[in-house]
């Protein structure tokens, strides 16, 4: 068995165990930690697929920023409120949606041709050029959306004008 396959299984185990942890864990903070494990596993999969840049972005954005913001929010809320939640009326709906998503994913997996032979990493120069020429407009739109969200967050957090700034808008 080649080494990369072993690494793939390790990464996959991370992804799966993390995912299961998110769903199963009763403690909401554990859920967030499991999410992080899953994210790092995905970064590992990206790395094995020679997408170094994507892997690092995965760690930076999801592992570093998103999970931490989630944790941040969780710690500011009252954990006791979530401790007893074991069931939800929307469970059938969630089941339908998740099954649908699963079907979609499987379908797309089956339809996508598997590339054969050695893959090499996309060079950073190519990536940057395509991002800022072909995909410049979507890129800018995405950043605009984020900016709007940022400003909106500040507006919401700010209690009343003239008051000192509250915390960070991240």
């Amino acid at each position, binding site marked *: 068995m080649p*080494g990369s396959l072993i690494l793939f299984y390790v990464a996959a185990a991370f992804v799966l165990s993390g995912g299961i942890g998110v769903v199963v864990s009763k403690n909401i*903070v554990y859920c967030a930690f499991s999410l992080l494990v899953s994210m790092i596993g995905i970064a590992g999969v990206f790395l094995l697929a020679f997408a170094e*840049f994507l892997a*690092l972005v995965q*760690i930076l954005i999801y592992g570093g920023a998103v999970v931490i913001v989630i944790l941040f929010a969780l710690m500011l809320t009252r954990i006791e409120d979530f401790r007893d939640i074991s069931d939800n009326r929307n469970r059938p709906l969630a089941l339908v949606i998740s099954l649908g998503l699963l079907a979609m994913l499987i379908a797309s997996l089956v339809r996508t041709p598997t590339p054969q032979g050695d893959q090499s990493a996309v060079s950073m120069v190519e990536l940057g050029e395509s991002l800022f020429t072909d995909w410049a407009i979507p890129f800018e739109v995405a950043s605009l959306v984020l900016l709007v969200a940022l400003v909106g967050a500040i507006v919401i957090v700010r209690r009343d004008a003239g008051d000192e*700034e509250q915390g*960070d808008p991240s």
Partner: protein
Amino acid sequence: MSLSEVFIILAKAVILMLSVSLVVLVLTYAERKALARIQQRMGPTRVGFKGILQPVADSLKLITKEDILPTWADRGVYWLAPIAVFVPAFLMWVTIPVTRQIVVENLDLGLFYITAVSVLSVLGLLMAGWGSASKWAVMGGLRAAGQLISYEIPFIMAILGVAMLAQSLDLTEIVAQQHSVSFALVQPLGLFIFLTSALAELGRTPFDIHHAESEVIGGPFVEYSGAHWSIFFLAEYMNTFTIAVLTVLLFLGGWSWPTMPFEGFLHATLSLIWLLIKTSAVLWLIFWIRGTYPRLRIDQLMAFGWKLLVPLSFLNIVITAIVLFYGLPLWVLTCLSGILLVGAVCIIRLNSSSSMERDTVRLVSAKDVRSKAKFSPLETSGGAE
């Protein structure tokens, strides 16, 4: 991947671990001695010659100390937190070159890798804060999360400025680019932003609010003791050293020497020594700042980060882009950067809370007070001015 490759990776990791541990030991000793000099003390003198074995004694003491688990602590999270802080600090070292030859694994995306991995250490602090089941620890953890995420932005942006100048994310390439002129001269503003935000990322004075001893009593680490506590500080000192080396590599020209007359092994050794000399200068600066400055408050820290450093870091990128795009000579960038830096200092000086007149304390002569026949304190009160 053959067995020998795995073995080589393991060997490299062990060597890296050993050298980094050694560096940390030296660094704790150096910091204690440096602070002692600043404060006119003697510092450690007992263990070994001039106290040089003090860090070893300290670590032995910490390792043999009892590990305490608070009753209400979340066992798993509590024990895992030190590891979560330590691993990113260690992983960063994989790609940092200390000379052109000596590097564990030189990555093309080296700089990006470092920024990505460094973010993860926040998580360890949050875990420590939450797992300790102590309010002080939670407050410290939340402070750490807010602070570290905020300063991530100027930190990355300052690095980006360097990457634009060097047209590369490869650290050896960046050093090679600085052969003629170091980027500190081209981007003084970038250096300022990098150092300030790096201090905040490290949680060192004046940004040490997340483990402020006088406020949150050590923050996330308040409940830890013994070996686990020492791992936190191992990580902290590793990060300090990383930042110092990065500053040298990114801004101060790394190991590059105008004309290095030697080749091969001698060249590598001399480069390493030159790099270490520069690094210790940066470290001294960090210690010096620690010995001088008080701590900021959380809202001031956030305001400083978001209102000053983030806009400045964007401006830094903008002026770099303009100069590079129009192919202007680099001294133009130096001038622009310098002007912005001076402006930033002025802003700090004229900041609303510190610009209020300082001489609010006036002197009232005792003679004047005595000469008043019937004295009533409120009548002469100047409180209303």
